[in-house]
C-alpha cells in the first residue's frame, strides 16, 4: 500500500512527466489553449496510457521469454498504434458520448511520447519507489498516476494560457515563446514538490 502511495506522489508531483521529465510536450504546447480541450486530451491520454501499459506489460513478458526483447521499441509502438485505433472504433460503438468528448484527441495520442515512455518506463526504472521491477498492479498505478500528473500539468498550463491572452505581452514574445517561459515558471513551481517524496519515504 505504501508503495502505491509513493508511486502516485512520485509520478504526479515529484517526477511530473511533462514538467520535469519533458514527455508529451508537443501536445502540451498544442492543445493547451483552452481548459476544456486540455481536459479532453488528459482523459484520452489516461484512457490509452493505462490500457497500453497493461497490454505492453504482458507483451514484454512474451518478448523476454522468447529472448527477443531487443524488439521492444518496435513491438510497443505497433501495439500502441493499433490500440489507439481499436479504442477509437470500440468507443464509437459503445459510448458515443465519450467518443464525442475524446474522439478528436485519440489519433494524436500515437505520437504522444508519454504513452510509449511510460510503457517502457515500467520495465526499466522504478523511480526509487521499490527495489524490484514493478508488478502488474504497480505498473497500472504508475500509468494512471502519470496520466493524472500529465492532466494536472496540462490543465494548469491551459488555465494560465487563457489568462495570458488578456495580458500585455511584448510583440516578439507573443505566442510560443511566452508559453515556453510560462511553462518554465510552472516547472519551477513543481520543483517545490521535490522534497515531498523524501519526507514520506
Amino acid at each position, binding site marked *: 500500500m505504501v508503495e502505491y502511495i509513493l508511486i502516485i506522489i512520485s509520478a504526479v508531483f515529484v517526477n511530473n512527466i511533462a*514538467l*520535469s*521529465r*519533458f*514527455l*508529451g*510536450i*508537443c501536445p*502540451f*504546447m498544442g492543445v493547451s489553449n483552452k481548459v476544456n480541450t486540455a481536459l479532453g486530451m488528459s482523459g484520452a491520454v489516461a484512457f490509452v496510457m493505462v490500457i497500453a501499459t497493461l497490454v505492453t506489460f504482458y507483451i514484454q513478458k512474451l518478448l523476454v521469454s522468447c529472448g527477443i526483447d*531487443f*524488439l*521492444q*521499441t*518496435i513491438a510497443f*509502438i*505497433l501495439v500502441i*498504434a*493499433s490500440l489507439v485505433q481499436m479504442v477509437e472504433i470500440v468507443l464509437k460503438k459503445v459510448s458515443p458520448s465519450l467518443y464525442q468528448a475524446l474522439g478528436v484527441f485519440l489519433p494524436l495520442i*500515437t*505520437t*504522444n*511520447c508519454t504513452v*510509449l*515512455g511510460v510503457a*517502457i*518506463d515500467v520495465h*526499466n526504472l522504478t523511480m526509487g519507489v521499490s527495489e524490484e521491477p514493478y508488478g502488474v498492479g504497480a505498473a497500472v498505478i504508475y500509468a494512471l498516476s502519470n496520466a493524472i500528473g500529465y492532466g494536472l500539468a496540462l490543465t494548469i498550463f491551459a488555465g494560465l494560457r487563457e489568462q495570458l491572452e488578456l495580458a500585455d505581452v511584448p510583440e*516578439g*514574445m507573443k505566442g*510560443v*515563446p*511566452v*508559453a*515556453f*517561459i510560462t*511553462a*518554465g*515558471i510552472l*516547472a*519551477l513551481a*513543481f*520543483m517545490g514538490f521535490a522534497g515531498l517524496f523524501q519526507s514520506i519515504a
Partner: protein
Amino acid sequence: MDNKNSKFEIFSKGLIKENPVLVLILGMCPTLGVTSSAINGLGMGLATTFVLLFSNIIISIIKDLIPDKVHIPAYIIVIASLVTILQLLLKGYLPALDESLGLFIPLIVVNCVVLGRAEAFACKNNVVDSALDGLGMGLGFALALTILGAIREILGVGSIFGYKFLAGDGIIGFVLAPGAFIVLGYMVAIAKKLKK
C-alpha cells in the same frame, strides 16, 4: 527542379528557415529533455539525424508500394526498426552516450520531426531529394539542440562541452527543468525576430 541551387535549397532550409525546433516547434521532448549539456544535445541531434536520413531514404524508395490506407503503420515500422538499430549500435559502440540519453533514444520513434518529414516530404519526392531533406532537417535539429545545450551548460555549470571555464557553481536552475523551457522560449523569440 534539378539544378544545383534547388538541391542546396532543399538541404539548407532545415538548418535555419524551416528549422524543426525553432520555427516548426516539433520534437520538443528530446529538445528539452536531453539538453542539460552541449554534448548531450549534439549526440541526440546526430542520433535523430541518422534516423531521419535513413527513414527518408527508405520511405521514398518504398512509397509506391504502400497503399495509402496503411501508410502510417508502414512508416512507423520502418522508423521503429531504424531506432532499434541505432539503439543497438549506440549500446555497442558509444555506451556512455546511450546512458546519458536513456529513454529518449527509443522515444525518437514518436519524435514528430521524423514522421512529419516522412509524411510531408519523403512520400512525395525522389530518393536524392529526400536524403538531402532528411540530412538538412536532422542537422538543423542537431544545431538547435547543441545551441540550447551549450547555453544551459554555460549558464548552469559554467562549462562548455565539459570544459570548465568559469569558477563557481553557475545558476543551477538552467540545468534543471525550468531552465530548459525558459532558454528555449527566448531562442524561439530570437528565431522569430531573425526570420522577419
